[in-house]
């Protein structure tokens, strides 16, 4: 499988010196206030409470947990993602507001870890969404988690943590991998292509043969089915 060639994109510096000071300030604030999405996808989540609570205290770095994907900046993939979870993770990722960052914690997100033989877990997280940072280990200690988060803070501050733009620029690649795993009729409720146009982030890899497949079967966007059993009938019109 050929991997995409990732071009590090650094935000353009504006010419107006005042604007540059402002941008610098905004980047600093972004790096100092990180909201983590409260989603435990796997076993690494067990080391997050220690990192969050009294002993290691994430809040002194300005990091705090948030509940809904809309509020959060960081998606922590804590360990292996089963295929069922991966669907939810992608939905969640697409609903988060940009700029957003993904951290893969634990070895399983890197290459499947000790579940390399398992039919139920996805192996390489960065095939399905752009990952800013991996924290390897099984499982990484809270110190390692905090060190990783600090590294992310540095990268945000210097403007290097732009992998979320990568998702728009190379959407075809990510969608292709998702379709390979979930079937060709895979569709998320978020319209990524429109969003990419909105941000002016259409790149060479945004549209391709996989997005064509998507457009063929794309239905008008509807809420995900949340029904219980079969007792609820379609309304008669």
């Amino acid at each position: 499988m050929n991997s995409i060639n990732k071009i590090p994109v650094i935000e353009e510096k504006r010419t107006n010196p005042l604007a540059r000071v402002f941008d610098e300030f905004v980047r600093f604030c972004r790096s100092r206030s990180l909201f983590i999405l409260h989603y435990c996808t796997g076993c690494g989540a067990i080391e997050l409470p220690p990192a969050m609570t009294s002993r290691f205290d994430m809040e002194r770095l300005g990091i705090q947990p948030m509940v809904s994907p809309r509020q959060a900046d960081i998606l922590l993939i804590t360990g292996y993602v089963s295929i069922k979870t991966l669907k939810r993770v992608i939905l969640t990722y697409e609903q988060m507001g940009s700029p957003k960052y993904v951290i893969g914690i634990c070895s399983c997100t890197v290459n499947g870890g000790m579940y390399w033989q398992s039919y139920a877990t996805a192996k390489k997280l960065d095939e399905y969404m752009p990952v800013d940072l991996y924290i390897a280990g099984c499982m990484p200690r809270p110190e390692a988690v905090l060190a990783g988060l600090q590294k992310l803070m540095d990268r945000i501050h210097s403007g290097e943590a732009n992998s979320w733009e990568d998702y728009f620029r190379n959407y075809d690649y990510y969608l292709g991998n998702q379709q390979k795993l979930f079937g060709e009729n895979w569709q998320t409720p978020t319209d990524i292509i429109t969003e990419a146009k909105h941000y002016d982030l259409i790149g060479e890899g945004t549209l391709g043969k996989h997005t064509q497949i998507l457009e063929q079967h794309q239905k008008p966007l509807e809420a995900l089915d949340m029904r219980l059993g079969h007792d609820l009938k379609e309304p008669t019109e």
Partner: protein
Amino acid sequence: MSQELTHWLDDLLEEIEGIKVRRKSSRRVRADVPADALPALLELLQGRAGYIHLSAISCVDWIEDDEFELVYHVWSYESHSLVSAHIRIAREPGVYLSVYDLYQPAGFFERDIHEMYGIHFEGSPNMEKFILTEWDGPPPMRKEFDSEAYVNEHLNWQEYNPPWLQELIAEGGGVIIPPEEQRFSRKKD
């Protein structure tokens, strides 16, 4: 206590035909029963001997015999002993009776075995998928399902092959084990 218990249990089990009882230790009894006699056995155990706790239902796929083995582990809070009732059913069509009306925990285990092995339990309240709701392959726990082949077909894993390792290998070193010497992970036997 255990002498007395043996005696009493043996008397009870004599009422069922074709049963073979083997006492493995003071608290473990193995009973092999014909498939059609199991509900009667469980009813006896539950009603007359106080084996009211169904600890688990396990399924073993004996592909060479073309049979599934179902094991019902029941525990008695009174006599502190566990009876494992083994039955064998044909692999095709793989249908058996539910014991949900005797033991409610059976609902979960039967559902689990249904999705993992494809055995259908008649009379079970809920045979919907629970864990593998988004899985459309064959029941994965069957022996003929090759998990590794499935993974190779559908997923990529990262080969760890950094430049420094390649250099080492080029010089004749490294940690690579030739395929014929790999005994555990990839071995097919």
